[in-house]
Each structure stands twice: as structure tokens, then as C-alpha cells.
């Protein structure tokens, strides 16, 4: 027995090295092929279907708990909730009236300037799955995937404003990178004066920063940042955040500007995937230089249902901006 074991062990040790090298080569090959050639989309998609049950199994207890909590809500809580929602709806409808008039005006102006109307045409609402991806990257998993025509680079909004963009698409799910991810940058402009710059994530869901603004730039605390539509990834005119702090050090050439994101990056559960109308991005990118053009371009025609919560949340900073044009 002992003799057997000894030969067994030594035999296995040499086998171990061989198998280790083989598996490592396989893994390295996978990394290179996945990174360089992007040929693994199909394999990954298949594997993700296999992994889906695990994700659902992890998420379901939390969903069950939420469902349970909602269903045992007291009558009182429901009534206050109802009252609040009604008040919000009234406010939103009031704002919408003005909004529709503005939209019509924007259409007319755009017709005058002979450019296409900057409207996004299709929205799909997805829900964040209760799955943690990576503690050090700001990403979430959403329950809409290739089956729902989601594509990489697609803009994702929540009721407050821009949430992020799609980083990876599987068959049934997709991964959304938040605007606050350190690797994420989004072209924005200041709604008040049309100043364009880029907002970069910090890794903190409550803060973005504008690292490329000169010290002399006209930016004050409370300014609303909206997407500029440049770069083509995002529809123009959606709120990104408000300026939270501006630090100007005279010895530096660039100002230190903090932005509070408009989207509830750490609280939202429902996200909206946006499909742009083809040909929309270029005209509005050309017009983005003028300060006034930016906001009417935001008016999404299809989802009035989507804009009221946005309007009500971003109300204080947005009010003056809406009146301006």
C-alpha cells in the first residue's frame, strides 16, 4: 500500500506540472483571444446562460424579501405613498404642459434650421439584479440582454438622469457601467452657458469630476450639467448632475470641479435603455455649440411617462434652464 502510494504521488506530481502548464496555456489563450480578437462572444453568451441560474438564485431571496415587505405594507403607508405620488403626478403634469409647448417650439426651430428632430424613439425598462459584480468597479447587472436588442455602448438612464452605458451584453442580461466608474467618461455641457467638457467617474457613486476645465472657466456651484451628445454615445440634453464644488487654485491651470450625479446611482432599481433614432446624433452634435439649442434637443417625444419623475427630481436646477429658451 505504501509502495503504491509513493509511486502514485510521484507520478501525480509530474502529471501535476504537465496539467498545470496545459491549463495555464489554455487560460492564457482564452485571455488573449477574448481581449484581442473578441471571438468569444458566442461562447461567453452560451456560458452566461449556464451562469444565469446562479445569478437568479442569488438574487431571488432578496427579491422575495422585497416582495414580502411590499405586500405586508400597512394601509397607512400605502395611503401616504398614494398621496405623495398623486402630488408628484400633478406637479409633473403641470410641468409637462410647458414641456410640450417647448417641444413644439423646438420642432419648429429645428425645421427652420433644416435638421432632424433630436428625439430618441424607443425605451425599454430593465431592472437591476441583486448581484454584486466587483467591489472596486462601478458596474451593475441588468435583466435585459441581447434578446431585447440591447447593444454595447447603449445609453442607460434612470428617473433622475444619465445612469451609465452598456458595457457587455449577454443573451438574457447585460452589464451597465455607471457614470461614476473611474474608467467612464461622458461628454457634457453646462446647461446655463453651453460650456462643453467631459465628466469623469471617481469610483464614488455620489461624485463625478470635471478634470479638464481651466481655472478661468465660467462654472458656479449649482450649475446643471447635461449630456452634450458629442461622441454619439448618449442622446443630448439629459441631466448628468449638478456642480457641487468648485476649487480654483491660482497656481494651477485647471480647476477642481466636483459634480453630484443626477441619477440615483446607488438607489435606482429600474433603468431605461435608450435607442437613438439613426441620424440624430450628428445634427445635434453640430448644433451643440450654441447654448440654447441643447435643451430643446432633449425633449424625448415618446416617453412622457419617463420624464415626469426626472423633471420633478431635477426640478430646482432645471427650472431656470427650461425657461431660458
Amino acid at each position, binding site marked *: 500500500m505504501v509502495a503504491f502510494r509513493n509511486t502514485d*504521488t510521484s507520478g*501525480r*506530481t509530474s502529471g*501535476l*506540472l504537465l*496539467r*498545470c502548464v496545459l*491549463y*495555464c496555456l*489554455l*487560460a*492564457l*489563450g*482564452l*485571455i488573449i483571444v*477574448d*481581449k484581442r480578437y473578441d471571438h*468569444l462572444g458566442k*461562447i*461567453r453568451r452560451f*456560458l*452566461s446562460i*449556464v*451562469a444565469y441560474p*446562479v*445569478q437568479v*438564485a*442569488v*438574487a431571488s431571496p*432578496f427579491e422575495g424579501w422585497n416582495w414580502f415587505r411590499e405586500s405586508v405594507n400597512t394601509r397607512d403607508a400605502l395611503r401616504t405613498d398614494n398621496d405623495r405620488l398623486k402630488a408628484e403626478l400633478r406637479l409633473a403634469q403641470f410641468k409637462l404642459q410647458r414641456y410640450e409647448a417647448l417641444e413644439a417650439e423646438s420642432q419648429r426651430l429645428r425645421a427652420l434650421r433644416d435638421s432632424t428632430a433630436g428625439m430618441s424613439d424607443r425605451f425599454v425598462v430593465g431592472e437591476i439584479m*441583486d*448581484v*454584486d*459584480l*466587483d*467591489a*472596486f*468597479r462601478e*458596474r451593475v*447587472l441588468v435583466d435585459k440582454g441581447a434578446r431585447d436588442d440591447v447593444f454595447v455602448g447603449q445609453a442607460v438612464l434612470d428617473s433622475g438622469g444619465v445612469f451609465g452605458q452598456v*458595457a*457587455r451584453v449577454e443573451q438574457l442580461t447585460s*452589464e451597465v457601467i455607471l457614470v461614476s466608474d473611474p*474608467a467612464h467618461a461622458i461628454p457634457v455641457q453646462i446647461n446655463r452657458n453651453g460650456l462643453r467638457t467631459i465628466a469623469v467617474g471617481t*469610483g464614488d457613486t455620489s461624485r463625478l469630476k470635471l478634470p479638464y476645465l481651466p481655472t478661468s472657466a465660467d462654472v458656479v456651484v449649482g450649475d446643471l450639467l447635461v449630456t452634450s451628445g458629442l461622441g454619439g454615445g448618449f442622446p443630448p440634453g439629459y441631466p448628468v448632475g449638478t456642480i457641487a464644488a468648485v476649487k480654483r487654485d491660482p497656481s494651477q491651470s485647471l480647476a477642481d470641479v466636483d459634480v453630484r450625479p443626477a441619477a440615483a446611482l*446607488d438607489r435606482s432599481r429600474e433603468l431605461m435603455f435608450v435607442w437613438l433614432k439613426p441620424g440624430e446624433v450628428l445634427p445635434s452634435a453640430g448644433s451643440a455649440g450654441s447654448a440654447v439649442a441643447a435643451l430643446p434637443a432633449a425633449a424625448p417625444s415618446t416617453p412622457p411617462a419617463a420624464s415626469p419623475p426626472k423633471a420633478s427630481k431635477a426640478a430646482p436646477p432645471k427650472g431656470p434652464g427650461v425657461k431660458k429658451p
Partner: protein
Amino acid sequence: MMREEKVRRVPMALSALIALAFAVLPLPAALDAFRPDFLVLVVIYWSIESPRAGGLGLAFFSGLALDVINGVVLGQHALALTLMAAWATHLRLRLRVFSILSQSLTIFALLAGYQFILFWVDGATGNPVTNFGRWLAPVVGAVIWPLLSGSLSRVRER
């Protein structure tokens, strides 16, 4: 001998699956950085206790599953797990006679090596995570190793 291995595969696969689920279980943000790499611990445990039944295959496919679920470049966790499992298998005879403290220290070295490979692949594929938080996981993992190996041994003996 063959039958014994077959019996062992069930708890092995089960523990790996549970550890995989734990890797994506939502935790409060404050605790998230302290999340230990349970799957690595489980794979190391089986590489030490019965390298024959699971061994590198288990490591490779667990790593692949982690890649898919975490949505990182395919092969990253597979590479790191395979290397560390091979190292653990190589050390297993010594590890079994170590005291708990030196076992934990060795496990810490394995986990740190695992994180280092992840770190390196992250950097090589162009999205580095330069955050010291990621080096917390090995410490937590080394601390809970005695608990985990104890409970897994109990499961295995049954």
C-alpha cells in the same frame, strides 16, 4: 478507490457552487471590500485534501465560471485559480502537518498570489484596478481558513 472518489465529487461540486454564489451575493457596501475569495479557499481545500478527485480541472472550471459571472476577461480567474491550486497541491503534504497558524500564513500567500495574478491580468488587459482594498480579501481569507477547512472536513467525513 474509484468509488471513494465518486462519492467525494458531490460535496466538492456543491461547496464550489455555494462559494460561487457567495462571490456575487449582494453585501452592504461597507462589507464588500472585506468579502473573502471563498471559491479560492474551497478550491485550495480540495486541492489539499483530495487532489485526485478535483484538482486542476475543478480549479480551471471554477475560475471560468467566476469569469463569466463577474464579467471580466475570460480566463483571468481560471488562470489564477489553476496556478494557485497547483501550488497548493504541491504543498499539500507539508500543509497537512502544519500548525493552524502556519497553515493560515501559507493560505495567505496563496490568496495574495491569486490577487496578484488577477491584478496583473487586469493591468495587462488595460483596465487596472489600483485600489488597496483588493489586498484586504487575502487577509480575511487567511483568517477564516481554519473555520472553513474545519467545516469542510466535517462535511467530507460524513
